[in-house]
C-alpha cells in the first residue's frame, strides 16, 4: 500500500532539548494508524511537524507526492492535511455552521469585490457552502446544532464539531489529537465506529494520538510507539501489546510481575 503522508528522519531540537530523534513514520493510504507513547514522548510535537506548526531541525515530510516540510500551516491545511486539537480549539463565538465554514476558506473563491457587490456567483457559492457545512454536521451527528454558538455545545458535540470542521478542509489525511479524552467506554466505542465510517465513506486516511489503549487496539491497523522522542516499536495491535519494550516504556522497569 502506498503512503499518503511520509515523514522521513524527523529530528526536532528545542535549544538543547531533543524532542524527536530521527523518527520516520508513514500513513498508508486509506489506513487508520495510531501514535502512542507515554507523556512527553514527543507525539504532539511530531503532530505539529506534520501540520507545519513546527519545522524539524532535520528530515522531511512528503504528502501526496509533494514535499511539505517547509510550507506554512495554512497551505498544508489547504492541501488536505486536517487536524483536531487536544484541547478543543473551536471558534466559540461563531455558530457550529460557521465554524465548519471557516475551514472551507481555502476552497471558496469569493473575493472582497464579489462579496461586497453580492454577485450571483458569490451568493451561489455561499449557499453551496452552507449546504456542505450542514451536510458535514449531519455526518458527524450534530446536524441540529447548526445555529448554536460553538461555546454552548456539550463537550461531546464540541468534539464532533471539531471533526466536522476538519473534514470541511476536504482532506486526504485526518490527524486526531487525543479525540477520546473525557469519553466513557460507551462513547469511545461509538467513536471507533465513527473513525471507521470516516475512512470507509470518505476515503480519508487517519492518524490518531491516543492514550486510551482499548480504543487504540480496536481502531488501529498499525500502531507506532514513541518514547522519549524515539520510535521504539511499530506493528499490528497484537504485536505491540506483546512487545516488552513498549510495556517497559509505559510501566517502567521491573514493574511487570511486582504490583
Amino acid at each position, binding site marked *: 500500500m502506498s503512503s499518503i503522508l511520509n515523514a522521513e528522519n524527523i529530528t526536532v531540537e*528545542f535549544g538543547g532539548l531533543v524532542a524527536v530523534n530521527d523518527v520516520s513514520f508513514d500513513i498508508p493510504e486509506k489506513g487508520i494508524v495510531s501514535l502512542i507513547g507515554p507523556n512527553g514522548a514527543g507525539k*504532539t510535537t511530531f503532530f*505539529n511537524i506534520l501540520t507545519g*506548526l513546527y*519545522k*524539524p531541525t*532535520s*528530515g*522531511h515530510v512528503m504528502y501526496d507526492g509533494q*514535499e*511539505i*516540510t*517547509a*510550507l506554512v500551516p495554512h497551505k498544508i491545511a489547504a492541501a488536505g492535511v486536517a487536524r483536531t*486539537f487536544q484541547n478543543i480549539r473551536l471558534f466559540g463565538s461563531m455558530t457550529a455552521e460557521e465554524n465548519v465554514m471557516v475551514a472551507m476558506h481555502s476552497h471558496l473563491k469569493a473575493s472582497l469585490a464579489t462579496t461586497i457587490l453580492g454577485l450571483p456567483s458569490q451568493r451561489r457559492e455561499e449557499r453551496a457552502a452552507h449546504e456542505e457545512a450542514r451536510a458535514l454536521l449531519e455526518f458527524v451527528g450534530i446536524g441540529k446544532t447548526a445555529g448554536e454558538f460553538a461555546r454552548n455545545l456539550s463537550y461531546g458535540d464540541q468534539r464532533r464539531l471539531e471533526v466536522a470542521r476538519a473534514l470541511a478542509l476536504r482532506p486526504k489525511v485526518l490527524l486526531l489529537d487525543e479525540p477520546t479524552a473525557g469519553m466513557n467506554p460507551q462513547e469511545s466505542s461509538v467513536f471507533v465506529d465513527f473513525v471507521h465510517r470516516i475512512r470507509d465513506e470518505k476515503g480519508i486516511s487517519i492518524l490518531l494520538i491516543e492514550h486510551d489503549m482499548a480504543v487504540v487496539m480496536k481502531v488501529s491497523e498499525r500502531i507506532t510507539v514513541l518514547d522519549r522522542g524515539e520510535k521504539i516499536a511499530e506493528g499490528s495491535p497484537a504485536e505491540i501489546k506483546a512487545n516488552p519494550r513498549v510495556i517497559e516504556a509505559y510501566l517502567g522497569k521491573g514493574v511487570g510481575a511486582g504490583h
Partner: protein
Amino acid sequence: MANKSYKARQVRRAIFERTFGIAILAMLSFWLIVNLIKAPSQFAEVTLIGLSNGVLYALIALGYTLVYGIIELINFAHGDLFMLGGLFSAHFIALWFHQTKSSPMGWLVFFLALISVMVFCAGVNVFIERFAYRRLRRAPKLAPLITAVGVSFMIQFVGLRWNGSGQKTWNSVLPHGSVMLGSVKLPYTTLISFAVTIPILIALTFIVTKTRQGKAMRATAQDQDASRLMGINVNGTIAFTFALGGALAGVAGLLFQQTRGLTSYNLGYQLGLIAFTSAVLGGIGNLQGAVLGAILIGLIQGLNDGLPIGLGQQWSQTVVFSILILLMVFKPAGLLGKQVTEKV
C-alpha cells in the same frame, strides 16, 4: 529538497539581518565620527545630556519591563505615573515644604521627597493593578491593553487638574552650576541623577536576584499557575512588582522635575513611549537590557537633537519610534532578550 531550502532560507535571512545590522552600525558610527570631528566639545556635552536622559529612561523602562515580564501586559499608563511622580515631587518640595533653593534643609527635603514619591507612586500603581487590571488577567489580550490606555488617559486628567494644561516651571533644590572636565561642562544635576539612580539600580538587582520576593517574581513570570501551585502568593507578587515599578517611576519623576524644573500633564505619554522603546531595545523582560536600551536611546535621542548634523528636535519622536518599529519588525527580542515560541 525543501527542507534544505528552508534551512537555506533561514541562513540567508540571518545573513541579511546581520549585514543590515552592520550597515546600520556603520552608518551610525560614521555620523557620530563626523559630528565628533566637527564639534568635539558640543559632542561631549550632548553625550552627557543624552546619558542623563538615558538614566531617567532606565528607571521608567525598568517599570515597563518588570510588569511585562510578570503579566505580559504593556502598562500603557506607566509613563503617566512618572509624570504624576514629578507633580507630586514639585508640590512636596516647593509648596508643602517651601524649598526652592539649594541648602541643607533643601537636601533633607529632597531625601524626604525621594522616599515619599516612591511610596506614593508605588501605592498608585498597586491601586491601579488591583482595580483596573486584576480582573482582566485572563481576558483576551485586547481587554487589559485597552484598559491600560484608559487608565493612562485618566491619569493625564489628574495631571491636567493638578498642573493645568500647560507647562509649569519650578525652582530646584539641587545646586546649580557644573564641574569642568577640560572644556566640557558636567552639570551637578547630572552627577546627582547618577548618584541617585545607580544605588537604586543596585538595590533593585539585589531585590530581584537575592530575595525571596524576587524569586517569587521570577517564578511567577515564568509560569503563574505553577507558582500558585508551589504556594507562591501570585496576587501579592504581582502587586509587589507593580509597587517596585511604581517606585522607580516616582524616582524618575522626582529627578526629572528637579533637574529640568518642569512639569506638564502630557510628559508621561511622550517620555513613556521612549522609555518603552528602550525596554524593547534591550529585550523586554530583561532588566539589564532595559538599562542598556535606555542609555542607548537616551544617547541616540540626545545626539539627534543636539548635534550640528542631525535631524533636530522636531524629528525626535520620529527617530525614536522608527527605531521601535524597526526593532519590532526585525528583532523583537531586542539586544539581550530571548525568543519564545508558543507551545501548542
